[in-house]
């Protein structure tokens, strides 16, 4: 088990000498800043307009959590889908390209240790990404009074989603030695699992009417990240959602382990 830390810390250090990490972090920070500023200005605008029209009902319903923090974190989740593959693409693929898989697999290290080492390296990186996102709502606590619990739930949602996406990235990276293929594969998997599954269900059921909503369609919907993250962003921490993140992470890590193991036999 101690090899997990060894592998993860080596991977993280290597990540931070590569330009990719800095490009991703820069883009992520700039986009987060822009989105935050945009949602802040939008919030202000709406508030002013509501005041102008004396719409006290609307003013009383507006709050920082529902109208600023939640959409902000929600949009950062969409950006995550596109940036995270750049971080995870090399996790296993670069070992094969370097020939260093020959070192890992001939060391007294189990394949689970390799897979978890890679996973925790990616997880460490997304903790940093989430911390950058957390910085912006933190500003609001200085000037206003957002709800702490709700804000933390939103950030936790982003973090858990990121973890499960890292697991997907580890899997995609383990099927190839080519980082570009790993990138595209991760992106496609993330887009399907993150956003497209509900649409796929809708399209396939479109002719059949509402009565045909079967258990299968329900299950496919459950597999999509969208509904799980929405509920958590609203401050609802549900066991079903937590289970979802745990199951996707564990599932894809198991797949990665199987892929690495079977590649030996070829």
């Amino acid at each position, binding site marked *: 088990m101690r090899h997990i830390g060894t592998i993860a810390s080596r991977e993280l250090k290597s990540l931070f000498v590569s330009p990719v990490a800095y490009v991703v972090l820069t883009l992520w920070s700039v986009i987060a800043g822009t989105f935050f500023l945009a949602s802040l200005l939008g919030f202000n605008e709406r508030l002013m307009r509501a005041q102008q029209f004396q719409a006290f009902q609307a003013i009383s319903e507006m709050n920082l959590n529902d109208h600023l923090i939640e959409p902000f974190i929600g949009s950062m989740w969409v950006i995550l889908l596109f940036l995270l593959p750049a971080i995870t693409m090399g996790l296993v693929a670069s070992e094969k390209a370097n020939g260093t898989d*020959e070192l890992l697999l*001939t060391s007294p290290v189990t394949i689970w240790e390799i897979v978890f080492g890679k996973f925790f390296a990616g997880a460490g990186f997304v903790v940093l990404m989430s911390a950058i996102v957390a910085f912006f709502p933190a500003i609001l606590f200085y000037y206003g009074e957002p709800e702490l619990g709700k804000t933390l739930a939103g950030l936790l949602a982003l973090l858990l989603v990121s973890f499960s996406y890292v697991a997907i990235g580890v899997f995609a990276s383990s099927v190839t030695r080519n980082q570009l293929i790993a990138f595209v594969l991760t992106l496609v998997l993330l887009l399907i699992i993150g956003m497209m599954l509900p649409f796929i269900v809708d399209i396939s059921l479109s002719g059949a009417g509402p009565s045909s909503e079967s258990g299968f369609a329900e299950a496919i919907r459950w597999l999509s990240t969208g509904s799980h993250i929405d509920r958590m962003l609203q401050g609802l921490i549900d066991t079903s959602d937590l289970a979802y993140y745990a199951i996707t992470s564990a599932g894809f890590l198991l797949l990665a382990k199987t892929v690495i193991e079977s590649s030996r036999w070829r």
Partner: protein
Amino acid sequence: MKLGGANSLTQDTAAADPSPAIEVEDLEKRYGDFAAVRGLSFSIRPGEVVGFLGPNGAGKTTTMRILTGFIPATNGVARIAGHDIFSDALNARRCVGYLPETPPLYPEMTPASYVDFVARLKDVPRKERRDAVERALERCGLVEVRNREIRQLSKGFRQRVGLAQAIVHEPAVLVLDEPTVGLDPIQIREIRGLIRDLAATGRQTVILSTHILAEVDAICQRVILIDRGRMALDEPLAELTGGGRSLEEVFTKVMTRDETHESAEDAA
């Protein structure tokens, strides 16, 4: 020791011939219909330096990869220092240092941090790790470049980093796959000197593959020649080259004899 009381007697009597460092029985590796290694058996005593010879595609790298646990064998048994490489894989791997044909380096690391990383992977105890890393760097002449990036190092230095990686945990068995390929003559001499120094400690079993016959002449005590996955010859170097024959003559003779043998078989 796992050996029971009944075995201790045979162990005492076998003092002259201690339990082998590497033991291979009927090793076989198939890729679909193609057999890369067919029925290889040999055993190597501790402290022996063995040259693993054969033409390209003879199965040298495959055999070495099986011994180090990188790929599983289709059939047969292999033991490293008494540990079965399949059923007791982690213990067997702890006893092996392995330098693959292309050294498994992370270009963005420095030799010092890389060798330290490998020492952790190979379970060098925490207290000894620092010393072990220093010793490996020193023995491989890497002290002056210890904090340079590996990607900036010359091929000769990279090969040395690969060697340092293989010896950092002081393994009982050292497996080197073409350790001098692609180096210039001076670097070759340095690497050979290094291997000879390692072997001179007497406790280190070395098996190295090459197709440079002079290399075998320079370092090895015993030659194992394989051809198309089969054992072609297994003899001490002194006997092979006794009577003024050069290794090259022997090599060519065995290979051509094999071929005529084979074609006769095909004809029959």
